[in-house]
């Protein structure tokens, strides 16, 4: 249902705009002034070596971390901090933050399913407590989302009774249930066995094909190259490259990206293009 909903914004307003974002943890500057726009209706992949700051950037966009400086706009609306005319930031009210944030869906590396609720319970929780939907209505919607990720027959199972891949698909259904304008993925397959990675990537591929806006932090270079319309390469807290897969992965390659990709090719982990 969500994919057919007309987007409130036209395609020329980016789904996410990141302007001059820095993030400091103590003395280390994890993000050193990032500017990025994520186009609507397509998949953008953030790649880069461990510690490059790609997960931190994603968590800043979800407002799980507060950027030290800079602003983040979701379809033009500020999240967390509003920028005044002179560039000074002011914190938005919790209600406003929650309102903008509810337009974003987040999928975590560790799934983070609530262990005391069934798969369906996980998907319905926010529909009932936040959207104030009737339990029965929420369950109908929840079942529809579970069948979208191919898990309608696991609705009554608890997370501990599901495989890692199934848990991650429930987590995707949980995010989809709120009909988000954009879905963020934080290394969604990094804690899965190789044979379970495929089922999650397939679900993500279907979502991308249906025209959802996805922003994916991933180590799956193959997925990035085939599904991503834009690829952003982060290194040491800086956005080094940003372009189409052809621009980034074709020749000539940026030497730093080449070095990074080689570590994957050495392991035979990815087939490019």
């Amino acid at each position, binding site marked *: 249902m969500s994919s057919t909903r007309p987007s409130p914004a036209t395609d020329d307003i980016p789904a996410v705009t990141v302007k001059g974002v820095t993030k400091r943890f103590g003395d280390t500057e994890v993000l050193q002034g990032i500017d990025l726009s994520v186009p609507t209706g397509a998949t953008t992949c953030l790649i880069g070596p461990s510690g490059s700051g790609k997960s931190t950037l994603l968590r800043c966009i979800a407002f799980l971390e507060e950027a030290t400086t800079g602003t983040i706009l979701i379809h033009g609306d500020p999240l967390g901090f509003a920028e005044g005319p002179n560039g000074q930031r002011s914190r938005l009210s919790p209600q406003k933050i929650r309102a903008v*944030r509810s337009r974003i869906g987040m999928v975590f590396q560790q799934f983070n399913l609530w262990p005391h609720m069934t798969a369906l319970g996980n998907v319905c929780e926010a529909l009932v407590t936040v959207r104030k939907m009737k339990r029965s209505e929420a369950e109908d919607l929840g079942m529809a989302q579970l069948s979208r990720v191919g898990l309608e027959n696991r609705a009554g199972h608890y997370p501990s009774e599901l495989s890692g891949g199934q848990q991650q698909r429930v987590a995707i259904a949980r995010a989809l249930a709120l009909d988000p304008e954009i879905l963020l993925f934080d290394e969604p397959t990094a804690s899965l066995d190789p044979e379970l990675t495929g089922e999650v990537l397939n679900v993500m591929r279907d979502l991308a094909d249906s025209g959802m806006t996805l922003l994916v932090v991933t180590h799956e270079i193959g997925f990035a190259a085939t599904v991503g319309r834009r690829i952003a390469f982060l290194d040491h807290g800086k956005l080094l490259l940003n372009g189409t897969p052809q621009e980034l992965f074709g020749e000539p390659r940026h030497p730093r990206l080449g070095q990074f990709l080689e570590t994957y090719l050495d392991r035979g982990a990815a087939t490019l293009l």
Partner: protein
Amino acid sequence: MTLDFGLMLDKMPEILSGLWVTLWMWVVSTILGAALGFLVATARRYGPAAVNWFLKLCVEILRGTPFLVQLFLLYFGGPFVGLRLEPVPAGLIGLTIYASAYFSEIFRAGFQAVPRGHVEAAECVGLSRTQILRRIIAPEMTMLVLPQCVNMAIILIKETAILSIITVPEMTMVIGAIGSQQYAFVDAMFLLAIFYWVLVEICGFLGRLAEARLSKFRFAVS
């Protein structure tokens, strides 16, 4: 020097009343102690630093002194500050406060054991702070701390015996008195020991049963 079981039967009403006192004081102090402990743990986690510091001091004092001394202070010392309590209320208040200190530490560890990501996931779908506490943290924590809570409840059954020292008419006091009257104190104490042993084993068994039934709510290994 053996217990006359015929006489024991005559004393049945007294024994049953002792059993009743032991059981109700145990149940009530466990429930109140757990509730108070939860409040203390919540206040320490979400309250201002000064509150946390003050409550930590209280908890450490309660955990660093014997229950018997706390009970004497309350029961014998209380009247000197205008707090004159009968044995039963004194025992109940003493046991509840004592229990709350240990329960608060159990819940504090429980708060820390709920993975940060589960709270973040709730934030991301728009649950408010109170909704997160009520719907996510509290139930998850309950599963995590259940074994320690059962353990604490078992410790408290045994602590109720100490209430006999301030003349609360519970099992230890009733059976001890009957044993003395009949010059069969050892037999009486032996019976009493068996009684507590059975009670504790039943409680432990039920706890393990509950734990097994709840195990599927635990984390899935990722």
